[in-house]
Protein backbone atom coordinates (compact mmCIF):
# COMPACT_ATOMS: atom_id res chain seq x y z
CA UNK A 1 0.00 0.00 0.00
CA UNK A 2 1.60 3.28 -1.01
CA UNK A 3 1.76 6.19 1.40
CA UNK A 4 -1.22 7.81 -0.31
CA UNK A 5 -3.12 4.57 -0.59
CA UNK A 6 -2.82 4.05 3.14
CA UNK A 7 -4.69 7.28 3.60
CA UNK A 8 -7.14 6.81 0.75
CA UNK A 9 -8.06 3.32 1.90
CA UNK A 10 -9.05 4.72 5.29
CA UNK A 11 -11.57 7.13 3.85
CA UNK A 12 -15.20 6.49 4.53
CA UNK A 13 -17.58 6.62 1.62
CA UNK A 14 -18.77 10.01 2.77
CA UNK A 15 -15.25 11.31 3.12
CA UNK A 16 -14.26 9.98 -0.24
CA UNK A 17 -16.56 12.47 -1.95
CA UNK A 18 -14.41 15.28 -0.65
CA UNK A 19 -11.14 13.92 -2.01
CA UNK A 20 -9.71 13.89 -5.49
CA UNK A 21 -6.58 11.82 -5.88
CA UNK A 22 -4.02 12.49 -8.58
CA UNK A 23 -1.72 9.50 -8.75
CA UNK A 24 1.73 10.45 -10.00
CA UNK A 25 2.75 6.81 -10.27
CA UNK A 26 -0.10 5.45 -12.29
CA UNK A 27 -1.31 8.32 -14.45
CA UNK A 28 0.21 7.92 -17.90
CA UNK A 29 1.69 11.07 -19.38
CA UNK A 30 1.11 13.06 -16.20
CA UNK A 31 4.75 14.07 -16.44
CA UNK A 32 6.28 14.97 -19.78
CA UNK A 33 9.35 12.77 -20.02
CA UNK A 34 11.32 15.34 -21.97
CA UNK A 35 10.54 18.50 -20.02
CA UNK A 36 9.51 17.08 -16.63
CA UNK A 37 6.49 19.38 -16.80
CA UNK A 38 3.29 18.31 -15.10
CA UNK A 39 0.28 18.01 -17.40
CA UNK A 40 -2.40 19.71 -15.37
CA UNK A 41 -5.18 18.50 -17.63
CA UNK A 42 -5.14 15.44 -15.40
CA UNK A 43 -6.00 17.57 -12.40
CA UNK A 44 -9.58 18.24 -11.29
CA UNK A 45 -11.23 21.13 -13.02
CA UNK A 46 -12.92 22.29 -9.86
CA UNK A 47 -10.78 24.32 -7.53
CA UNK A 48 -9.94 22.42 -4.32
CA UNK A 49 -9.98 23.94 -0.84
CA UNK A 50 -6.66 22.48 0.13
CA UNK A 51 -3.91 20.50 -1.57
CA UNK A 52 -2.39 17.52 0.25
CA UNK A 53 0.93 16.38 -1.10
CA UNK A 54 2.32 12.94 -0.37
CA UNK A 55 5.05 12.56 -2.94
CA UNK A 56 7.70 9.86 -2.88
CA UNK A 57 8.76 9.31 0.75
CA UNK A 58 10.89 6.20 0.67
CA UNK A 59 14.21 7.93 0.16
CA UNK A 60 15.19 7.22 3.75
CA UNK A 61 14.66 3.52 3.11
CA UNK A 62 16.62 3.65 -0.11
CA UNK A 63 19.44 5.22 1.79
CA UNK A 64 19.32 3.26 4.98
CA UNK A 65 17.10 0.23 5.23
CA UNK A 66 20.05 -2.02 4.56
CA UNK A 67 23.62 -1.47 5.62
CA UNK A 68 25.73 0.17 2.96
CA UNK A 69 28.79 -1.90 1.92
CA UNK A 70 30.81 0.99 3.31
CA UNK A 71 29.01 1.45 6.62
CA UNK A 72 28.65 5.00 7.82
CA UNK A 73 27.59 7.04 10.79
CA UNK A 74 25.98 10.46 10.60
CA UNK A 75 26.44 13.58 12.68
CA UNK A 76 24.38 14.04 15.81
CA UNK A 77 23.86 17.19 17.83
CA UNK A 78 24.67 15.76 21.26
CA UNK A 79 26.32 12.43 20.60
CA UNK A 80 28.56 13.66 17.83
CA UNK A 81 27.80 10.66 15.66
CA UNK A 82 25.24 7.87 15.43
CA UNK A 83 25.98 5.02 15.58
CA UNK A 84 28.91 5.57 17.94
CA UNK A 85 31.09 2.99 16.18
CA UNK A 86 34.17 4.90 15.02
CA UNK A 87 35.03 2.23 12.46
CA UNK A 88 32.23 3.60 10.34
CA UNK A 89 32.82 6.38 7.85
CA UNK A 90 31.51 9.68 9.13
CA UNK A 91 29.06 11.90 7.28
CA UNK A 92 28.17 15.29 8.80
CA UNK A 93 24.43 15.71 9.15
CA UNK A 94 24.28 18.71 6.83
CA UNK A 95 25.69 16.49 4.12
CA UNK A 96 22.88 14.00 4.68
CA UNK A 97 20.39 16.87 4.50
CA UNK A 98 22.03 17.93 1.26
CA UNK A 99 21.70 14.37 -0.03
CA UNK A 100 17.94 14.47 0.50
CA UNK A 101 17.63 17.87 -1.17
CA UNK A 102 19.56 16.52 -4.12
CA UNK A 103 17.73 13.22 -4.25
CA UNK A 104 14.31 14.84 -3.97
CA UNK A 105 14.89 17.71 -6.37
CA UNK A 106 12.75 16.23 -9.12
CA UNK A 107 9.99 15.49 -6.61
CA UNK A 108 10.13 19.02 -5.29
CA UNK A 109 10.19 20.37 -8.82
CA UNK A 110 6.84 18.71 -9.45
CA UNK A 111 5.55 20.05 -6.15
CA UNK A 112 6.70 23.52 -7.15
CA UNK A 113 4.69 23.24 -10.34
CA UNK A 114 1.61 22.31 -8.35
CA UNK A 115 2.13 25.31 -6.11
CA UNK A 116 2.35 27.48 -9.18
CA UNK A 117 -0.84 25.96 -10.54
CA UNK A 118 -2.72 26.67 -7.30
CA UNK A 119 -1.00 29.86 -6.18
CA UNK A 120 -3.47 30.89 -3.48
CA UNK A 121 -4.38 27.56 -1.93
CA UNK A 122 -3.21 26.13 1.38
CA UNK A 123 -0.90 23.15 0.96
CA UNK A 124 -0.11 20.39 3.42
CA UNK A 125 2.88 18.11 2.94
CA UNK A 126 1.96 14.75 4.45
CA UNK A 127 4.96 12.93 5.81
CA UNK A 128 5.74 9.37 4.86
CA UNK A 129 5.51 6.95 7.78
CA UNK A 130 8.63 6.30 9.82
CA UNK A 131 10.79 3.28 9.01
CA UNK A 132 9.60 -0.15 9.95
CA UNK A 133 12.16 -1.29 12.50
CA UNK A 134 10.96 -4.85 12.80
CA UNK A 135 13.35 -7.05 10.86
CA UNK A 136 11.07 -10.07 11.18
CA UNK A 137 8.25 -8.11 9.57
CA UNK A 138 10.45 -7.02 6.69
CA UNK A 139 11.77 -10.55 6.20
CA UNK A 140 8.21 -11.85 6.24
CA UNK A 141 6.98 -9.28 3.73
CA UNK A 142 10.09 -8.28 1.80
CA UNK A 143 8.32 -7.40 -1.42
CA UNK A 144 10.90 -6.23 -3.98
CA UNK A 145 13.55 -5.99 -1.29
CA UNK A 146 13.81 -9.77 -1.06
CA UNK A 147 16.87 -9.49 -3.25
CA UNK A 148 18.63 -7.58 -0.47
CA UNK A 149 17.70 -9.71 2.50
CA UNK A 150 21.15 -11.24 2.61
CA UNK A 151 22.43 -7.87 3.70
CA UNK A 152 22.42 -6.70 7.30
CA UNK A 153 19.91 -4.04 8.28
CA UNK A 154 21.25 -0.63 9.15
CA UNK A 155 21.49 0.14 12.86
CA UNK A 156 18.19 1.46 14.27
CA UNK A 157 19.56 4.84 15.32
CA UNK A 158 20.91 5.39 11.82
CA UNK A 159 17.58 4.55 10.22
CA UNK A 160 15.81 7.00 12.51
CA UNK A 161 18.39 9.70 11.80
CA UNK A 162 17.88 9.27 8.07
CA UNK A 163 14.10 9.41 8.42
CA UNK A 164 14.39 12.59 10.45
CA UNK A 165 16.61 14.06 7.73
CA UNK A 166 13.96 13.21 5.16
CA UNK A 167 11.30 14.90 7.28
CA UNK A 168 13.49 18.02 7.49
CA UNK A 169 13.78 18.05 3.69
CA UNK A 170 10.00 17.99 3.27
CA UNK A 171 9.62 20.53 6.05
CA UNK A 172 12.02 22.90 4.28
CA UNK A 173 10.17 22.38 1.03
CA UNK A 174 6.89 23.20 2.77
CA UNK A 175 8.37 26.29 4.38
CA UNK A 176 9.64 27.53 1.03
CA UNK A 177 6.00 27.81 0.00
CA UNK A 178 4.51 28.84 3.33
CA UNK A 179 2.87 25.40 3.50
CA UNK A 180 2.39 23.08 6.47
CA UNK A 181 4.31 19.88 7.05
CA UNK A 182 2.33 17.12 8.71
CA UNK A 183 4.58 14.70 10.60
CA UNK A 184 3.73 11.05 11.10
CA UNK A 185 1.11 10.58 13.81
CA UNK A 186 2.75 10.00 17.17
CA UNK A 187 0.24 7.28 17.98
CA UNK A 188 1.59 5.22 15.09
CA UNK A 189 5.18 5.34 16.30
CA UNK A 190 7.11 3.27 18.78
CA UNK A 191 8.99 5.07 21.56
CA UNK A 192 12.12 4.69 19.43
CA UNK A 193 10.43 6.43 16.53
CA UNK A 194 9.72 3.42 14.28
CA UNK A 195 6.40 2.56 12.74
CA UNK A 196 4.36 0.59 15.24
CA UNK A 197 3.59 -2.80 13.71
CA UNK A 198 -0.11 -2.28 14.37
CA UNK A 199 0.04 0.41 11.71
CA UNK A 200 2.31 -1.37 9.25
CA UNK A 201 1.15 -2.71 5.94
CA UNK A 202 2.21 -6.17 4.85
CA UNK A 203 5.28 -4.82 3.14
CA UNK A 204 8.59 -3.32 4.33
CA UNK A 205 7.84 0.40 4.13
CA UNK A 206 4.20 1.44 4.09
CA UNK A 207 1.50 2.13 6.62
CA UNK A 208 -1.86 0.38 6.63
CA UNK A 209 -5.39 1.69 6.63
CA UNK A 210 -5.26 2.22 10.40
CA UNK A 211 -2.23 4.41 9.83
CA UNK A 212 -4.16 6.22 7.12
CA UNK A 213 -7.01 6.83 9.54
CA UNK A 214 -4.65 8.54 11.98
CA UNK A 215 -3.31 10.70 9.18
CA UNK A 216 -6.84 11.67 8.16
CA UNK A 217 -7.62 12.63 11.74
CA UNK A 218 -4.47 14.75 11.81
CA UNK A 219 -5.50 16.45 8.59
CA UNK A 220 -8.98 17.12 9.92
CA UNK A 221 -7.76 18.71 13.09
CA UNK A 222 -5.19 20.73 11.18
CA UNK A 223 -7.85 22.03 8.81
CA UNK A 224 -10.04 22.91 11.77
CA UNK A 225 -7.17 24.90 13.22
CA UNK A 226 -6.63 26.66 9.93
CA UNK A 227 -10.30 27.36 9.34
Amino acid at each position, binding site marked *: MSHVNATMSALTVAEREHFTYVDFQRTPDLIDAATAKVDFSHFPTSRPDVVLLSMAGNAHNVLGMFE*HPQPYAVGHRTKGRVPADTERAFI*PLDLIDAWFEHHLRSVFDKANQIHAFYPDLPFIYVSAPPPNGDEVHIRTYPNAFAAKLHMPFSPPELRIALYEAQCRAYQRQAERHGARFLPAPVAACTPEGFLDLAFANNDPTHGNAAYGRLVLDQISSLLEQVA
Partner: protein
Amino acid sequence: MSNRNHPYLGLPDRQFWKKEPGIVTPATFDPVGHVPFTITKTDGVVTAGSCFAQHVARRLTQSGFSHMVTEPAHPIIPREVAARFGYNLFSARYGNVYTARQLLQLLHRAYGLFTPLATHWPRGQSGRVVDPFRPQIQPEGFISAAELDEDRKVHLAAVRRAIETMDVFVFTLGLTEAWIDRRDGAVFPIAPGISGGVYDPDLVDFHNFDETETSDDLLAALAFIRERNPRVRIILTVSPVPLNATMEARHVFVSTTWSKAVLRIAAERATRALKDVCYFPSYEIITAPHVRGRYFAEDCREVRDAGVSHVMRLFFHHFAGMPIEAGNVKDKQDGPATASRKADAHLSEMEALNKIHCDEEAINNG
Protein backbone atom coordinates in the same frame (compact mmCIF):
# COMPACT_ATOMS: atom_id res chain seq x y z
CA MET B 1 84.60 42.32 -32.97
CA SER B 2 85.18 41.54 -29.32
CA ASN B 3 87.12 38.77 -27.70
CA ARG B 4 86.36 39.89 -24.14
CA ASN B 5 86.02 37.14 -21.60
CA HIS B 6 83.34 37.52 -18.88
CA PRO B 7 81.34 35.22 -16.60
CA TYR B 8 78.10 35.40 -18.59
CA LEU B 9 79.61 33.93 -21.68
CA GLY B 10 78.10 30.59 -22.61
CA LEU B 11 75.28 30.73 -20.12
CA PRO B 12 71.93 29.33 -21.24
CA ASP B 13 69.49 31.63 -23.03
CA ARG B 14 66.98 31.43 -20.18
CA GLN B 15 69.33 33.47 -18.04
CA PHE B 16 69.03 36.44 -20.37
CA TRP B 17 65.93 38.58 -20.55
CA LYS B 18 66.21 39.40 -24.24
CA LYS B 19 66.51 35.72 -25.20
CA GLU B 20 63.13 34.75 -23.75
CA PRO B 21 60.78 33.70 -26.59
CA GLY B 22 57.85 34.72 -24.45
CA ILE B 23 58.63 38.37 -25.11
CA VAL B 24 57.37 37.84 -28.62
CA THR B 25 55.07 34.91 -28.08
CA PRO B 26 53.62 35.00 -24.54
CA ALA B 27 52.30 31.45 -24.73
CA THR B 28 55.84 30.14 -25.01
CA PHE B 29 57.03 31.87 -21.85
CA ASP B 30 58.77 29.20 -19.81
CA PRO B 31 60.66 30.22 -16.68
CA VAL B 32 60.81 26.75 -15.17
CA GLY B 33 64.27 25.47 -15.89
CA HIS B 34 65.76 22.34 -14.33
CA VAL B 35 63.63 20.28 -11.97
CA PRO B 36 65.38 17.82 -9.65
CA PHE B 37 62.88 14.99 -9.98
CA THR B 38 60.00 13.75 -12.09
CA ILE B 39 56.45 12.68 -11.41
CA THR B 40 54.66 9.73 -12.94
CA LYS B 41 50.95 9.14 -13.19
CA THR B 42 51.16 6.51 -10.49
CA ASP B 43 52.77 8.81 -7.95
CA GLY B 44 50.35 9.85 -5.25
CA VAL B 45 50.26 13.65 -5.20
CA VAL B 46 48.99 15.54 -2.18
CA THR B 47 48.02 19.19 -2.56
CA ALA B 48 47.60 21.91 0.04
CA GLY B 49 47.83 25.63 0.26
CA SER B 50 45.91 28.64 -0.92
CA CYS B 51 43.05 28.69 -3.35
CA PHE B 52 45.36 28.55 -6.38
CA ALA B 53 46.36 25.07 -5.24
CA GLN B 54 42.81 23.96 -6.02
CA HIS B 55 43.52 24.57 -9.69
CA VAL B 56 46.59 22.39 -9.46
CA ALA B 57 44.63 19.63 -7.78
CA ARG B 58 41.87 19.76 -10.38
CA ARG B 59 44.23 19.71 -13.34
CA LEU B 60 46.22 16.84 -11.89
CA THR B 61 43.11 14.71 -11.79
CA GLN B 62 41.90 15.80 -15.20
CA SER B 63 45.27 14.94 -16.70
CA GLY B 64 45.25 11.43 -15.33
CA PHE B 65 47.65 11.99 -12.47
CA SER B 66 46.98 10.50 -9.09
CA HIS B 67 45.74 13.32 -6.93
CA MET B 68 45.51 11.58 -3.59
CA VAL B 69 42.33 12.17 -1.62
CA THR B 70 42.55 10.67 1.83
CA GLU B 71 39.36 12.31 3.07
CA PRO B 72 36.80 11.58 0.36
CA ALA B 73 33.10 12.04 0.70
CA HIS B 74 31.20 8.82 1.28
CA PRO B 75 30.22 7.19 -2.04
CA ILE B 76 26.53 7.92 -1.49
CA ILE B 77 27.20 11.65 -1.67
CA PRO B 78 26.76 13.09 -5.19
CA ARG B 79 29.85 14.80 -6.51
CA GLU B 80 28.38 18.28 -6.71
CA VAL B 81 27.18 18.02 -3.13
CA ALA B 82 30.58 16.79 -2.00
CA ALA B 83 32.27 19.74 -3.68
CA ARG B 84 30.04 22.21 -1.86
CA PHE B 85 31.19 20.67 1.39
CA GLY B 86 34.87 21.01 0.61
CA TYR B 87 35.59 17.42 -0.33
CA ASN B 88 38.26 16.69 -2.93
CA LEU B 89 39.29 20.31 -3.36
CA PHE B 90 42.50 19.29 -1.65
CA SER B 91 43.77 15.92 -0.52
CA ALA B 92 42.08 16.29 2.83
CA ARG B 93 39.29 18.59 3.87
CA TYR B 94 41.53 21.27 5.35
CA GLY B 95 40.32 24.08 3.14
CA ASN B 96 42.83 26.76 2.32
CA VAL B 97 46.11 26.59 4.23
CA TYR B 98 47.35 30.09 3.65
CA THR B 99 50.42 30.54 5.82
CA ALA B 100 53.44 28.39 6.58
CA ARG B 101 52.61 28.62 10.28
CA GLN B 102 49.14 27.28 9.52
CA LEU B 103 50.66 24.32 7.70
CA LEU B 104 53.02 23.62 10.59
CA GLN B 105 50.22 23.80 13.13
CA LEU B 106 47.99 21.58 11.00
CA LEU B 107 50.71 18.94 11.07
CA HIS B 108 51.17 19.33 14.81
CA ARG B 109 47.43 19.10 15.38
CA ALA B 110 47.22 15.99 13.22
CA TYR B 111 49.85 14.25 15.32
CA GLY B 112 48.53 15.41 18.67
CA LEU B 113 51.41 17.77 19.33
CA PHE B 114 49.24 20.86 19.51
CA THR B 115 45.68 21.10 20.78
CA PRO B 116 44.47 24.66 20.31
CA LEU B 117 42.27 26.22 22.95
CA ALA B 118 39.89 27.40 20.23
CA THR B 119 37.90 24.27 19.47
CA HIS B 120 34.90 25.81 17.78
CA TRP B 121 33.43 29.17 16.92
CA PRO B 122 29.72 29.90 17.16
CA ARG B 123 27.88 30.47 13.93
CA GLY B 124 24.74 32.53 14.35
CA GLN B 125 22.26 31.96 17.11
CA SER B 126 21.21 28.41 16.31
CA GLY B 127 23.88 26.51 18.23
CA ARG B 128 25.75 25.85 15.04
CA VAL B 129 29.52 26.08 15.07
CA VAL B 130 32.40 26.31 12.65
CA ASP B 131 35.89 24.92 12.86
CA PRO B 132 38.21 27.89 13.59
CA PHE B 133 40.85 26.26 11.39
CA ARG B 134 38.61 25.67 8.36
CA PRO B 135 35.64 27.94 8.99
CA GLN B 136 34.23 27.69 5.49
CA ILE B 137 34.53 23.95 4.98
CA GLN B 138 30.77 23.46 5.32
CA PRO B 139 28.30 26.00 3.92
CA GLU B 140 26.49 26.40 7.23
CA GLY B 141 29.03 25.02 9.65
CA PHE B 142 28.37 22.02 11.88
CA ILE B 143 25.23 21.32 13.85
CA SER B 144 27.09 21.25 17.17
CA ALA B 145 30.51 21.18 18.76
CA ALA B 146 30.07 17.44 19.32
CA GLU B 147 29.58 16.83 15.60
CA LEU B 148 32.54 19.05 14.75
CA ASP B 149 34.70 17.07 17.18
CA GLU B 150 33.83 13.87 15.34
CA ASP B 151 34.52 15.39 11.97
CA ARG B 152 37.82 16.81 13.16
CA LYS B 153 39.01 13.37 14.29
CA VAL B 154 38.24 12.01 10.84
CA HIS B 155 39.89 15.00 9.20
CA LEU B 156 43.12 14.86 11.18
CA ALA B 157 43.41 11.11 10.61
CA ALA B 158 43.08 11.82 6.89
CA VAL B 159 45.86 14.41 7.14
CA ARG B 160 48.12 11.81 8.74
CA ARG B 161 47.33 9.29 6.00
CA ALA B 162 48.13 11.87 3.35
CA ILE B 163 51.44 12.82 4.95
CA GLU B 164 52.59 9.26 5.45
CA THR B 165 51.61 7.79 2.09
CA MET B 166 52.15 10.55 -0.47
CA ASP B 167 54.89 10.43 -3.06
CA VAL B 168 54.75 14.10 -3.95
CA PHE B 169 53.62 17.08 -1.90
CA VAL B 170 52.61 20.26 -3.70
CA PHE B 171 52.26 23.20 -1.36
CA THR B 172 51.18 26.62 -2.56
CA LEU B 173 52.17 29.44 -0.25
CA GLY B 174 49.45 32.05 -0.21
CA LEU B 175 49.58 34.63 2.55
CA THR B 176 51.67 36.11 5.30
CA GLU B 177 48.91 38.02 7.10
CA ALA B 178 47.10 36.01 9.75
CA TRP B 179 45.14 36.15 12.99
CA ILE B 180 46.64 34.56 16.05
CA ASP B 181 45.03 33.40 19.26
CA ARG B 182 46.83 35.35 21.97
CA ARG B 183 46.41 32.52 24.45
CA ASP B 184 48.29 29.78 22.64
CA GLY B 185 49.49 31.12 19.31
CA ALA B 186 47.00 29.18 17.19
CA VAL B 187 46.81 30.68 13.71
CA PHE B 188 43.43 31.07 12.05
CA PRO B 189 43.04 31.19 8.28
CA ILE B 190 40.64 34.12 8.51
CA ALA B 191 39.74 36.52 11.26
CA PRO B 192 37.03 35.49 13.69
CA GLY B 193 33.78 37.24 12.90
CA ILE B 194 33.96 36.76 9.12
CA SER B 195 32.75 33.17 8.77
CA GLY B 196 31.70 32.42 12.31
CA GLY B 197 33.23 33.31 15.61
CA VAL B 198 33.28 36.64 17.35
CA TYR B 199 35.99 39.18 16.84
CA ASP B 200 37.46 40.07 20.23
CA PRO B 201 40.62 42.19 20.07
CA ASP B 202 41.57 40.88 23.51
CA LEU B 203 41.70 37.33 22.18
CA VAL B 204 43.29 37.65 18.76
CA ASP B 205 46.18 39.59 17.32
CA PHE B 206 46.82 40.44 13.74
CA HIS B 207 50.24 39.30 12.61
CA ASN B 208 52.12 39.63 9.35
CA PHE B 209 54.74 36.90 9.19
CA ASP B 210 58.07 38.11 7.85
CA GLU B 211 60.58 36.22 5.75
CA THR B 212 62.42 34.76 8.74
CA GLU B 213 59.30 33.49 10.44
CA THR B 214 57.87 32.13 7.21
CA SER B 215 61.11 30.40 6.28
CA ASP B 216 61.49 28.87 9.72
CA ASP B 217 57.89 27.65 9.71
CA LEU B 218 58.12 26.24 6.22
CA LEU B 219 61.38 24.46 6.94
CA ALA B 220 59.98 23.09 10.17
CA ALA B 221 56.86 21.86 8.40
CA LEU B 222 58.79 20.19 5.61
CA ALA B 223 61.21 18.61 8.05
CA PHE B 224 58.27 17.33 10.06
CA ILE B 225 56.81 15.77 6.91
CA ARG B 226 60.13 14.24 5.94
CA GLU B 227 60.49 12.63 9.35
CA ARG B 228 57.29 10.74 8.65
CA ASN B 229 57.80 10.24 4.95
CA PRO B 230 61.49 10.40 4.06
CA ARG B 231 61.02 9.68 0.37
CA VAL B 232 58.48 12.41 -0.39
CA ARG B 233 59.32 14.85 -3.16
CA ILE B 234 58.15 18.38 -2.53
CA ILE B 235 57.07 21.10 -4.94
CA LEU B 236 56.61 24.60 -3.60
CA THR B 237 54.74 27.30 -5.42
CA VAL B 238 53.62 30.81 -4.56
CA SER B 239 50.06 31.75 -5.32
CA PRO B 240 49.82 34.50 -7.93
CA VAL B 241 46.48 35.61 -6.54
CA PRO B 242 46.83 39.04 -4.88
CA LEU B 243 45.62 39.67 -1.35
CA ASN B 244 41.90 40.26 -1.07
CA ALA B 245 42.43 42.61 1.87
CA THR B 246 45.21 43.76 4.14
CA MET B 247 45.23 44.75 7.77
CA GLU B 248 48.34 46.80 7.22
CA ALA B 249 47.61 50.50 6.93
CA ARG B 250 48.64 50.72 3.31
CA HIS B 251 47.38 49.88 -0.12
CA VAL B 252 46.45 46.24 -0.56
CA PHE B 253 48.70 45.93 -3.58
CA VAL B 254 51.72 47.13 -1.65
CA SER B 255 50.92 44.52 0.97
CA THR B 256 50.57 41.96 -1.80
CA THR B 257 54.07 42.57 -3.17
CA TRP B 258 55.53 42.39 0.33
CA SER B 259 53.74 39.13 1.10
CA LYS B 260 54.65 37.53 -2.20
CA ALA B 261 58.28 38.55 -1.72
CA VAL B 262 58.32 36.94 1.72
CA LEU B 263 56.74 33.75 0.40
CA ARG B 264 59.11 33.63 -2.53
CA ILE B 265 62.10 33.98 -0.22
CA ALA B 266 60.81 31.23 2.06
CA ALA B 267 60.29 28.91 -0.88
CA GLU B 268 63.74 29.65 -2.22
CA ARG B 269 65.38 29.02 1.13
CA ALA B 270 63.60 25.70 1.45
CA THR B 271 64.74 24.56 -1.98
CA ARG B 272 68.29 25.44 -1.09
CA ALA B 273 68.17 23.82 2.31
CA LEU B 274 66.43 20.54 1.55
CA LYS B 275 66.96 17.77 -0.94
CA ASP B 276 64.22 16.97 -3.42
CA VAL B 277 62.41 20.22 -2.80
CA CYS B 278 61.66 22.18 -5.95
CA TYR B 279 60.26 25.66 -6.53
CA PHE B 280 57.81 25.80 -9.39
CA PRO B 281 57.28 29.35 -10.68
CA SER B 282 53.53 29.51 -11.11
CA TYR B 283 53.57 32.97 -9.55
CA GLU B 284 56.00 34.15 -12.18
CA ILE B 285 54.10 32.59 -15.08
CA ILE B 286 50.93 34.42 -14.19
CA THR B 287 52.41 37.76 -13.21
CA ALA B 288 55.29 38.12 -15.67
CA PRO B 289 55.25 41.15 -18.00
CA HIS B 290 55.55 38.67 -20.86
CA VAL B 291 51.91 37.67 -20.52
CA ARG B 292 50.80 41.30 -20.40
CA GLY B 293 48.43 40.85 -17.49
CA ARG B 294 46.09 38.79 -19.64
CA TYR B 295 45.96 35.94 -17.15
CA PHE B 296 44.10 38.03 -14.61
CA ALA B 297 40.34 38.37 -14.81
CA GLU B 298 38.51 41.69 -14.93
CA ASP B 299 38.85 42.06 -11.18
CA CYS B 300 42.65 42.04 -11.61
CA ARG B 301 42.81 39.26 -9.03
CA GLU B 302 41.27 35.98 -10.11
CA VAL B 303 43.43 33.90 -12.43
CA ARG B 304 41.86 33.08 -15.77
CA ASP B 305 41.63 29.56 -17.05
CA ALA B 306 44.21 30.36 -19.73
CA GLY B 307 46.70 31.25 -17.03
CA VAL B 308 46.10 28.05 -15.14
CA SER B 309 46.52 26.16 -18.42
CA HIS B 310 49.85 27.81 -19.06
CA VAL B 311 51.04 26.92 -15.56
CA MET B 312 49.93 23.34 -15.79
CA ARG B 313 51.28 22.83 -19.32
CA LEU B 314 54.70 23.67 -18.00
CA PHE B 315 54.14 21.66 -14.84
CA PHE B 316 53.35 18.50 -16.79
CA HIS B 317 56.06 19.17 -19.32
CA HIS B 318 58.84 19.62 -16.83
CA PHE B 319 57.82 17.16 -14.15
CA ALA B 320 56.28 14.43 -16.29
CA GLY B 321 58.00 14.90 -19.62
CA MET B 322 54.74 15.48 -21.41
CA PRO B 323 54.82 17.46 -24.66
CA ILE B 324 53.80 21.04 -24.00
CA GLU B 325 50.57 20.67 -25.97
CA ALA B 326 49.64 17.45 -24.20
CA GLY B 327 49.42 19.23 -20.87
CA ASN B 328 46.88 21.65 -22.24
CA VAL B 329 43.90 20.12 -20.52
CA LYS B 330 40.87 22.35 -20.38
CA ASP B 331 39.59 23.14 -16.95
CA LYS B 332 36.26 21.61 -16.22
CA GLN B 333 33.62 22.84 -13.87
CA ASP B 334 33.26 19.53 -12.19
CA GLY B 335 36.88 19.39 -11.11
CA PRO B 336 38.61 16.80 -9.06
CA ALA B 337 35.77 16.58 -6.72
CA THR B 338 33.86 15.13 -9.43
CA ALA B 339 36.22 13.27 -11.57
CA SER B 340 34.60 10.21 -13.04
CA ARG B 341 32.57 9.46 -9.99
CA LYS B 342 29.99 6.82 -10.67
CA ALA B 343 26.66 6.60 -8.96
CA ASP B 344 26.89 4.51 -5.83
CA ALA B 345 26.00 0.93 -6.79
CA HIS B 346 24.22 0.10 -3.55
CA LEU B 347 22.06 3.20 -3.77
CA SER B 348 21.27 2.59 -7.41
CA GLU B 349 20.14 -0.94 -6.64
CA MET B 350 18.05 0.21 -3.70
CA GLU B 351 16.41 2.90 -5.80
CA ALA B 352 15.57 0.37 -8.49
CA LEU B 353 14.11 -2.02 -5.91
CA ASN B 354 12.13 0.76 -4.31
CA LYS B 355 10.66 1.68 -7.65
CA ILE B 356 9.61 -1.91 -8.22
CA HIS B 357 8.30 -2.06 -4.67
CA CYS B 358 6.15 1.03 -5.13
CA ASP B 359 5.04 0.02 -8.61
CA GLU B 360 3.96 -3.37 -7.31
CA GLU B 361 2.04 -1.76 -4.50
CA ALA B 362 0.34 0.55 -6.92
CA ILE B 363 -0.68 -2.39 -9.05
CA ASN B 364 -1.91 -4.30 -6.03
CA ASN B 365 -4.10 -1.44 -5.04
CA GLY B 366 -5.32 -0.69 -8.48
